[in-house]
């Protein structure tokens, strides 16, 4: 019997019927899809080079330049279409790294029931007490503004929250009968974590994913906004908002367009996350 496939089929079915039917989730997914497509296909559609000065700085929108020109006279639309790739890539990698670290620490802390738990969680508390943006700025200033440093520092700031959520869920699940039954029949720890615990804490983790992802967008964009991340003239949404503040009275769209794209992305991710949380609540009954 193909038991494994029926298992995933069933959860997929639940996902389809629970999450996909809610209007919030559909709107959210459309939002995310728009931004992702914009970022991936953008460079192919861009009418001009993102780094070439082609007109008067701060020129208001015209037929040739739908969103006008920026503070150095570059085409805002082209920079917007080019700027998504790096931002999205960095945010996705930072979120994945956050989860790799947070999940490992949370699972170990929640499952051991020994001093290791307190040790890990106190360490997590230390990281949690550090102001997020400050840590990132210090790291970027000290180690240089490379993409790797940005990603690592974002993960460093974000992993404590994940570790705590994972630990709490693990602690709760590890007291359930089926986990105890697995311990009693002598399953090894890896198999207990993978087979018994992980699938049952997936709900809260996926629900949290949206939140972490939007946090990483905000953090990385903020660092770029402060001019310490991606260095000009490379296009980036966060950076664009910062650069064009000085010409906001001449061409509002140079600031507004990247802000709206970031807002749509965060809104979309959170709508999907919320719909998922709601579907979890319903299926528990």
């Amino acid at each position, binding site marked *: *019997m193909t*038991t494994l496939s*029926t*298992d995933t089929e*069933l*959860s997929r079915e639940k996902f389809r019927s629970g999450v996909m039917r809610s209007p919030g989730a559909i709107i959210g997914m459309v939002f995310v899809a728009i931004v992702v497509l914009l970022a991936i296909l953008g460079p192919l559609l861009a009418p001009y080079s993102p780094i070439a000065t082609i007109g008067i700085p701060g020129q208001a929108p015209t037929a040739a330049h739908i969103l006008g020109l920026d503070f150095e006279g570059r085409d805002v639309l082209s920079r917007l279409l080019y700027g998504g790739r790096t931002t999205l890539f960095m945010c996705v990698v930072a979120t994945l790294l956050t989860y790799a670290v947070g999940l490992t620490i949370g699972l170990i802390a929640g499952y051991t029931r020994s001093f290791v738990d307190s040790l890990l969680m106190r360490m997590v508390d230390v990281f949690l007490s550090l102001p997020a943006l400050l840590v990132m700025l210090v790291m970027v200033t000290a180690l240089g503004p490379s993409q790797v440093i940005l990603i690592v520092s974002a993960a460093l700031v974000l992993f404590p929250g994940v570790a705590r959520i994972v630990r709490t869920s693990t602690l709760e699940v590890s007291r*359930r*009968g*089926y986990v*105890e*039954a697995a*311990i*009693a*029949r*002598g*399953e090894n720890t890896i198999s207990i974590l993978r*087979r*018994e615990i992980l*699938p*049952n804490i997936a709900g809260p983790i996926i629900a949290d994913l949206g939140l972490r992802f939007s946090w990483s967008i905000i953090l990385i964009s903020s660092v770029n906004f402060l001019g310490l991340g991606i260095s000009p003239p490379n296009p980036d949404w966060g950076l664009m908002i910062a650069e064009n503040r000085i010409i906001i009275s001449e061409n509002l769209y140079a600031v507004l367009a990247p802000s709206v794209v970031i807002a749509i992305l965060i809104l979309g991710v959170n709508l999907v996350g919320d719909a998922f949380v709601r579907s979890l609540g319903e299926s528990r009954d």
Partner: protein
Amino acid sequence: MNDADNDALELRDVKIELSSHDAIISGVNLEMRRGEILGLVGESGSGKTTTALSIFGYWGRGLKLTRGQIVVGGEVMSTQQIFRTARGRLVSYVPQNPGVALNPSLRIGNAIRDMVRQGRVATSQPEEVSSLLVRVGLPGDSEFSRRYPHQLSGGQQQRVCIASSLASRPTLIVLDEPTTGLDVVTQELVLEELIRLRDQENVAMLYITHDLAVAAKIAQRIAVMYAGRVVEQGSVREVLSKPRHPYTRGLVASTPDHLVIRPLTPLQGIAPSLRERTTGCPFAPRCPQRVDLCERELPELLEISLGHKVRCPEWKKTPLVDWTTLVVQSDVQTQMEVSTVLKVTGLRAEYRSRGQNVVAAKDVSFSVLRGGCVALVGESGSGKTTIARVIVGLHAPLKGEVQFRGESLSGLAKHRSIEQRRGIQIVFQNPSDALNPRHSVEVAIARPARLLRNMDRNDASKEVLRLLDAVRLPSSVARRYPTELSGGERQRVAIARALAAGPEILVCDEISSSLDVSVQAVVLELLRDIRVEFGLSIVFITHDLGVVATVADRVLVLESGLICEEGNTLEVMRSPRHIYTRKLLDAAPSLIASINKWDSDEDRYG
């Protein structure tokens, strides 16, 4: 007082529906007078709580009162406005779980004072609170009323709830399983208190319970609900000693009793879900005496003698319940060579609770014979579960030894050999978390067979089908997931999973305590069968003496970490030696004890 003053409650043809027009309860008629306790009995999903809450004008989200009338204390409850003024003034509520019902940040005196203000007579006398506390058997001094709920025991908390339900001087008190969370000795005290208050305060009490023995003890009249309808109603004596509805009879025959050691006769099948209810008698599919008409038409509630009503046209056919004691010396033991399979010596174990070490076992020694069933009995907190966890290697003992087939076992399962882990299996108390919701029944049962008996995929699949058959489940269950199963079905799957390891000892930790009586009877009878079929020894942990009498041949009574009495089940039940055992046995509600008492009262007074 005239008749109208005496009417505490009248439900006339009450029907409460979901928005999908599936009726939760339908055609419910109940009358109560002051100074009377009516037992409302039924299993989960029978609609007893919905009925009780309808008296408060409270139905859950999506529910609607679509027919009938509710009259409390002579006042017709026609609008939510009237319901609101009636709450507290005419009717008050005692919840199942006082620990959750009492506001933890409110001193109990203030909590009771709030309810005094809800009453018809606005008294602001300070002694009102202390007099209420005294009336429910608690100290009335101001020190006590300044305590917070967490400073009280469970029994005291429930008394506070009862005191506050009396505070507004209502006509009717609705008690929703008020003693389910209490141990038997405390339950006994609370029940006596309630009977005294009924007479003293001339108040009507609607007592909801799933436990027939408790209903027999406290109620004068009883109404049995099934699938949203009252199926039998009458004096508690008539209904319980000569049940005329086959469902009531099934419940009585499924109720374990520590005074009569007898096999239980479980009902066939399970209760229909809301969607499955037809126009016919809801009990028809499970009924041994159904006729063609039953499946098409809902039977009337017939009055067969004064006040005794039965919703069954074939009520005359319902056989009497067999209360004869089954005296068989454990046949399993005599057939096999008697050898000790498990030996526990000088066990000491502690667990941590709220930052404190609690001693679960001080010095516990016992042995289990091959094929025998030993019951560990004790109240909550007596350390029974910890002993079970030590045996299966989930909890390391501080001192002492556990021997399996003569070999000493390591404290933790991961240090035990495969053969040792295979030989001892456990079934847990709570069926809702015993199975991993992400694994199908087949995966759950196949795992121990593959891990501990080294079976390949095909053999394990065959083993799954064989075990499902052994626990009386259809093979189609293999592809289902735990959330699609009922509590009783899940518990049977959990038993099958334990059997898949091919154990010699099955440790059962309160496996039937969260199940309905009729489902419990199925599980207990199943356990009896598989014990013979698989030649198992069983360590059965429970607080329920009736269950002990049904399954065990030896019993160990635990009191604060020590075994205070040990012996043959029949002997311990008949003639307990230790004072604690006697206290437990005296407090344990027994249906047959109530029936015998009614009979002897009749003999005496004619």
